[in-house]
């Protein structure tokens, strides 16, 4: 049964939303596959190497990038490092608590990270300062400031935007500052299943109504780079295939809209 | 060699030709009946059940169970009945004249009671009572346990199995619906009875168990 921080999602809202869905409409008037309008403000925090404040509907997240020199991992001596972290700030929702990362924030961070990593957005080979000894470490920290559903897509949008605006402080290592080399643009599209319908970019109420969630991250070539199913419901293989198609189509639209 | 009853897994279809589907069976999204458990198919006059091989006791109102006192409160005893949830015994539901704060002298931590499930709500909170014939604090004897789903096999049709074991081993036996069993007699007889019970438990899924147990117990008593 869906519930929010303060109790159960009201029965009135539940039946309103499900009735609308049968007509192919959303509670807020959107079509089933429509994303909420996103506002992306890059360089929001100039002190960071790169940053982006993203509002996706009423969900608001802030991604900041810091790039520092450090040691590479022993098993990848000739490659820079990317690390992604998500923090659910207590200001974002009544039940979010300060403290170490929990399974929700870890899952979001890892799905966002996977999309960026597997799309080869960042050429980590180009982040080597001294092979085997010193490389650039790219820290992506994402703060959740206001929560109204679909954190994974909001965080991917923010992380990708921040990385695209980031520069490497190479002057600290005797070189010249330069933009972070980025290539592919991964776009994640998250859907929830409500009844038998797949609904893109769910808001909080839709997330609570959904039985299962799936995220598919694609690149411009239409290839799948990351996937993640969540929640206790299930999907048929056909629904997953449909979700992949929706993601690659919607992803192309979003890529064009926000990154060209 | 014994014949075994049909074993099913969760999700296996249960043919309606076997009888009216009852316990341990659910209707899937296609409207077909399926097993909820890893267990055996048990047919009887009322219909067909799937009986799991193991599992916790699920309380039902009116069941007589054996429970162990876990704590002593001012007016209540929380009691472990081999279930997902502990149950409660209130001092007013005992035959004793007690006053609040002074109930420990009647039942202490670790004591066993033979009690009846009196009430049960939808979030599985339950209360037991000692106010009925035969219900009491259990003293002396010994306690053994089996998985609750196998209790009907230990009891047998109309008590046939447990009575057979009682007679053959010269013991008094109280079987709780929750799988706890109290046995009283000489230590040798109690051990004999426990051995017999454990055979029934291990072969609960076989056909013709009563006959085999009869033979087993007869041979034992000759020795």
């Amino acid at each position, binding site marked *: 049964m869906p519930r929010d921080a303060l109790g159960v999602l009201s029965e009135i809202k539940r039946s309103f939303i499900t009735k609308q869905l049968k007509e192919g409409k959303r509670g807020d008037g959107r079509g089933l596959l429509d994303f909420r309008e996103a506002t992306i403000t890059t360089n929001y925090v100039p002190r960071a190497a790169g940053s982006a404040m993203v509002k996706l509907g009423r969900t608001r997240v802030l991604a900041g990038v810091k790039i520092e020199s450090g040691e590479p991992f022993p*098993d990848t001596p000739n490659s820079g490092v990317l690390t992604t972290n998500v923090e659910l700030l207590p200001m974002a929702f009544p039940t979010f608590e300060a403290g170490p990362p929990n*399974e929700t924030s*870890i*899952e979001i961070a*890892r799905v966002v990270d996977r999309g960026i*990593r*597997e799309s080869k957005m960042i050429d980590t080979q180009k982040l080597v300062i001294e092979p085997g000894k010193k490389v650039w470490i790219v820290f992506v920290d994402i703060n959740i400031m206001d929560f109204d559903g679909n954190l994974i897509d909001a965080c991917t949008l923010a992380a990708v935007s921040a990385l695209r605006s980031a520069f490497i402080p190479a002057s600290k290592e005797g070189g010249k500052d330069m933009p972070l080399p980025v290539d592919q643009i991964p776009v994640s599209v998250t859907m929830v299943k409500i009844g038998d319908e797949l609904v893109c970019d769910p808001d909080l109420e839709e997330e609570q109504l959904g039985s299962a969630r799936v995220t598919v991250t694609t690149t411009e*070539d*239409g*290839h*799948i*780079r*990351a*996937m*993640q*199913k*969540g929640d*206790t*419901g*299930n*999907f*048929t*293989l056909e*629904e*997953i*295939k449909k979700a*992949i198609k929706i993601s*690659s189509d919607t992803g192309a639209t979003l890529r064009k809209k926000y990154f060209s | *060699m*014994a*014949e*075994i009853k049909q*074993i099913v*897994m*969760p*999700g296996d279809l249960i043919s309606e030709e076997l009888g009216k589907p009852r316990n341990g069976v*659910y209707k*899937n*999204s296609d409207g077909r009946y*399926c097993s*909820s*458990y*890893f*267990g055996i198919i048990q047919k009887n006059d009322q219909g067909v059940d799937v009986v799991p*091989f*193991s*599992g*916790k006791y699920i309380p039902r109102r009116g069941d007589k169970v054996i429970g162990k006192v876990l704590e002593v409160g001012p007016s209540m005893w929380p009691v472990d009945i081999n279930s*997902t*949830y*502990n149950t409660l015994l209130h001092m007013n539901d005992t035959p004793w004249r007690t006053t609040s704060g002074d109930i420990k002298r009647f039942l202490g931590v670790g004591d066993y009671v033979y009690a009846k499930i009196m009430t049960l709500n*939808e*979030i*599985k909170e339950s209360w037991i009572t000692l106010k009925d014939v035969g219900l009491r604090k259990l003293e002396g004897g010994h306690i053994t346990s089996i998985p609750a789903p196998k209790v009907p096999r230990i009891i047998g049709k109309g008590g046939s199995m447990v009575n057979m074991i009682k007679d053959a081993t010269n013991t008094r036996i109280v079987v709780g619906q929750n799988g706890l069993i109290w046995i009283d007699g000489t230590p040798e007889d109690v051990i004999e009875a426990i051995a017999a019970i454990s055979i029934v438990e291990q*072969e609960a*899924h076989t056909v013709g168990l009563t006959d*085999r*147990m009869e*033979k*087993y117990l007869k041979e034992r008593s000759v020795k």
Partner: protein
Amino acid sequence: MGSESNIKLLDESGMRLDGRTPEQLRPIKIETNLLERADGSAYIEWGGNKIMVAVYGPREAYPKHTQDIEKAVVKARYNMAAFSVDERKRPGPDRRSVEISKVISEALSSAIMVEQFPRAQIDVFIEVMQADAGTRIAGLTAASVAVASAGIPMRDMVVGCTAGKVEGKVVLDLSKEEDNFGQADLPIAVLSKSKKIVLIQMDGDLSLEEFDQASEMIMKATDNIAEIQRNALTSRYSVENIGDGE
């Protein structure tokens, strides 16, 4: 996904390093009820994976604020032993195991009739003693057996398999080398009969056609693995394993 390597993962005829065909599973063996204390348990060997699963419950959920008044909460804990991998792993939960624990808990919740046990929790401890690629799926497949053996009601069994891409070819059930140096990894777990997907993750690079091929391979393989689950559970109740009263 994996880093570049010089190892050739497929030979000219498409055979794999360990001699398997692209659609061949590694050997799988499951045993049940090895642990005395747990309410249900299972042990799985899948290739070089050695994983023990113990189930406790349903029991009342503690601390109390974790209780759900309407259903049982499934708490899987996936844990890798420090010695389970080549380089010693620091003991305790890391981010990867927290994520895996979450998706496994959710997958099991899809199958277990959690609504029968308000306020309760079902603990599923998955201990990876030796890891050899595909541990989350092997652990989940064994966990389903352990839950069934605990007598917990389920709508269906959960069974899974992985597929991936190595050297541009889609193959079933990645080995450790294929996992390390391959181009994609796709673990899927389904409800055994309905084939509804309860766990899916993917990382790497797959085209839509490659996804179709990989998912089809997995679906086919789950039938075989489900049979292994069934045999593991039923064998100890088979005719050979009961005496006739003596």
